């Protein structure tokens, strides 16, 4: 699953550390999400979407052929 988390975060001028603290996850989790190494739980995906005041689909891109 691809995501636009890094782009959205940079657009808003938020550091990984700040986002991690706001979402109550580790900075490594944010880094792994941005690199596509880790797919978040649905709860974390909702938290991220709510934090950026957008929808999950705007951040995370589901690719059927990858599955």
């Amino acid at each position, binding site marked *: 699953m691809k995501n636009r988390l890094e782009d959205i975060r940079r657009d808003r001028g938020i550091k990984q550390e700040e986002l*991690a*603290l706001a979402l*109550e*996850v*580790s900075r*490594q*989790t944010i880094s*792994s999400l941005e690199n596509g190494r*880790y797919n*978040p*739980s649905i*709860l*974390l995906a909702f938290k991220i979407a709510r934090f950026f005041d957008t929808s999950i689909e705007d951040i995370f891109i589901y690719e059927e052929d990858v599955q």
Partner: protein
Amino acid sequence: MKKTMPYVTTVAGAALLVFGLVGIKTFGDVQGFMAALPYICIGLGCGALGGGVGEIANRRVLESNPETARRMEIEKNDERNLSIANRAKGRAFDVMIPLFGALMLSFALMGIGMIPILMLVAAYLFVCGCGVYYRIRYEREM
């Protein structure tokens, strides 16, 4: 209860340690289990005392640094960290099962007594039973 636990552990550890040290001096020439008891008490006492003192010191430090405490709490509950820990445990379990089997077979071929082999088989079956139990439980929960 949770707040007083480290103090209880520390006091119990200190008591065990003192009991063990006194036991070495006073037990004289006893045989069997009683001869080993003071040393077991010293070992357990040192462990409990060290763990208790460590926990008390940890709490004191975290109380004076709420920001560090929050970060530690986040690291502890971080879903990626939990996922990594669970996957690692799963892998270790997968390795342990055939390893136990090989060990039982080796012990049997080496002609080691019946009791140790049966204990190993019991431990093996218990671990497998735990695996089945949690699988059924999670099947119902999820």
